[in-house]
């Protein structure tokens, strides 16, 4: 690719991000009207906008990973803050249709080391999926598992389809759409986290609904 083309793409992406940012802020600023049909349409638009944002982020992530630049910027962050942030965003997207609850177990330290923006990107995608499939509620959790920090998103849906569980378990690539695509990215991000020889991981399970667990080493 010529450098002119690169500049052109960079400028386009920049504009695209601005436009999307404006669109999502504009949608966020529309107050509830009390008219159920109208509010539902605005909520649907918010969810779709969130979906487009996620696809754009994923596209950029693939670009970076292909260039070998997907290295997390690790710093100290509060797992409590991250769970709170995710819950606020989930509540905004759920708009009262789905209950959002959180739990941070007492053994979770006040500070964890991870790339906040990458981890949040993986988790908000899981939250978004759960909001689509959940019957009545989702739960965002942080807990310790084998000395690693584990962020989980649970819902009360039918659970993950068997083929997704299987393909994630044996690590085979597959032509994924929708939910599956987001999960592939979450795995990419998890595995990019590394600490003293331990690697991050993505675990999926069905336990009264879908359970998405993101393990930070």
């Amino acid at each position, binding site marked *: 690719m010529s450098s002119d083309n690169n500049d052109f793409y960079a400028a386009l*992406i*920049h504009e695209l*991000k*601005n436009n*999307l*940012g*404006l*669109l*999502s*802020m*504009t949608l*966020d*600023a529309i107050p509830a009207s009390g008219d159920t049909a109208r509010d539902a349409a605005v909520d649907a638009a918010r969810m779709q906008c*969130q979906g487009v*944002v996620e696809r*754009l982020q994923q596209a950029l992530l693939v670009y970076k990973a292909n260039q070998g630049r997907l*290295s997390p*910027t*690790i*710093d*100290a962050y*509060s797992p*409590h*803050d991250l*769970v*709170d*942030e995710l*819950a*606020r*965003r989930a*509540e*905004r997207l759920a708009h009262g249709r789905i*209950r*959002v*609850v*959180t*739990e941070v177990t007492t053994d979770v*330290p*006040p*500070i964890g*080391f991870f790339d906040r*923006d990458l981890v*949040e990107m993986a988790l908000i995608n899981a939250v978004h999926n759960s909001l689509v499939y959940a019957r009545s*509620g989702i*739960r*965002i959790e942080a807990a310790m598992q084998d000395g690693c920090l584990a962020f989980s998103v649970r819902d*009360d849906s039918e659970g993950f389809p068997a083929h997704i569980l299987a393909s994630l378990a044996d690590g085979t690539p597959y032509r994924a759409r929708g939910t599956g695509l987001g999960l592939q990215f979450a795995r990419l991000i998890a595995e990019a986290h590394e*600490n003293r020889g331990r690697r991050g991981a993505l675990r999926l399970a069905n336990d009264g609904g879908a359970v998405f667990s993101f393990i930070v080493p």
Partner: protein
Amino acid sequence: MAFPPAASGKPAIDFGALRALVVDDYSGMRNALRLTLSNFGITKVQLAANAAEAIFQIRNKPYDFILCDFNLGEGRDGQQLLEELRHSNLISLDTVFMMVTAESFYEKVVATAELAPDDYMIKPFSAEVLCARLVSILLRKRAFADTYRHFRENQLEAAIGACDTLMRDQPRYAIDALRFKGEILNAMGRFEEAEALYKQVIAMRAVPWARLGLARALHLQQKDEAAEEELRDVLEHAPEMVAAYDLLADVCLAKKDPAAAQEALQQGVAVSARTVRRQQKLGEVAFDNGDLDTARTACTQAIEKGRHSVFITPADYGNLCRVQLQQGDLKAVANTLKFNKRMLEATPEGQLVMAVTQSVAYTREGKSADAAKTLDTVASLRAAGTHGDSHLMLDLASTCMANGRLDEADAVVAEVARNAHDSDALLAKARKIYADAGRDDAGSSVLASATADVRKLNNEGVVFAQKGDFRTAADRLLTACEAAPFNPRISMNAVWVILKHIDQAGMDEQMIAAARRQLGEAERQAPGHPRLAGLRLHLREIESRFGIHRKHA
């Protein structure tokens, strides 16, 4: 699933009282951000379209929260704005500065920067995240209120105590407290403690800022081999960490490896070309290395990126002209002076740069009458007390010599030598000027007598100080300061003995005024010198012991 709702149990923030400034070059985004903020209850929102507007507004009234886009179109970017605001003390540690960026790359750039924003937002972001992060920063600032107050009042010991308290009582801020404490320790010259602190953080996790802090602490203890090893390893894993290149260049210069220093700066510039100070330094180092093309590009970039900022002085124009003169490109010199004429003519320092540069150019062209005229202008500027940087003064000396104004040349060289009696590089450059003119002997005697006086007074002062006679030591060193008014080493020694004298004999108003003056001069001549912080602290401690309350910048 019965759990309490999210975001409960946190102390409330009064958004209604928060004064916010949104800086974005795109009016659609400015208005959208204002609307978003007003939805949280932040109603006092002002808007600015670029760095100049933002600085104007911030000068007019203080803000509690600045939300700034990194990309501000033409002119300075958000990071340059932040650097200028902090450098000029226009915002305090209590002000929240958040950067908005379209590039997650930015976080890597600033992750270790000396001047980092409080947080950053990657576009596109949701209103909830912006709100949550703002609350989180405001709570952190609240937790750090005592630390910041002590720091502002230059009570660094107390600020460290406050950090220790935070680490003990509020573990969620332990890492932030360690980071701040490390910076204070390095600033106070307590490098060994800083080294231990950063090693403690790295034992938890090798976060980049801790590794950089460790390298800085090592460099300041002259452990440059270990510092270089640390930095090279950091950069191997994170080549975009620009602050590491700047420090690596300092380390290489300390190891007397200017070629490696230039390479490090060039790598830093390749990652981020916008930092004025990196370009300035690259210009200087490349010039000394004889790499004139690189020097010229860097000097030009520095001026271009730093135009209208506080980081550009007349010396920067002088530096560019020096490179162009060395290249024999007299036309470029004329253009540089022409295009920046108004700016240079505005101050005596600028006029001096212009006149010296013109005199060099005229001499090259063999226009001796014009050269003589500009040298007369230089002489009258100098007679009025205008002072230039050492490189400019040495250019002047060599031109005076070429025009047969030997006494003037000797006087200028003597002034440079007195003010830099311990700088091998400058003295060697001065010696070369004499050698080129076939006046080696004259040069030796000028340099010897100029440095001898200062050295003698300085050494006498030090000897008296060692004997405990601080009063006599202070007299000698203040006499040395009169002979060498811009010599940072002498100024710092003078401050040191005056403070010891007051410790011993009690308050002396005239002496402490002299100490303040000399400390100010040393800070101007050698900003960031490792001895400065300790002296400042000692001065401050004496002032508070004797009940002198001064307003701090």
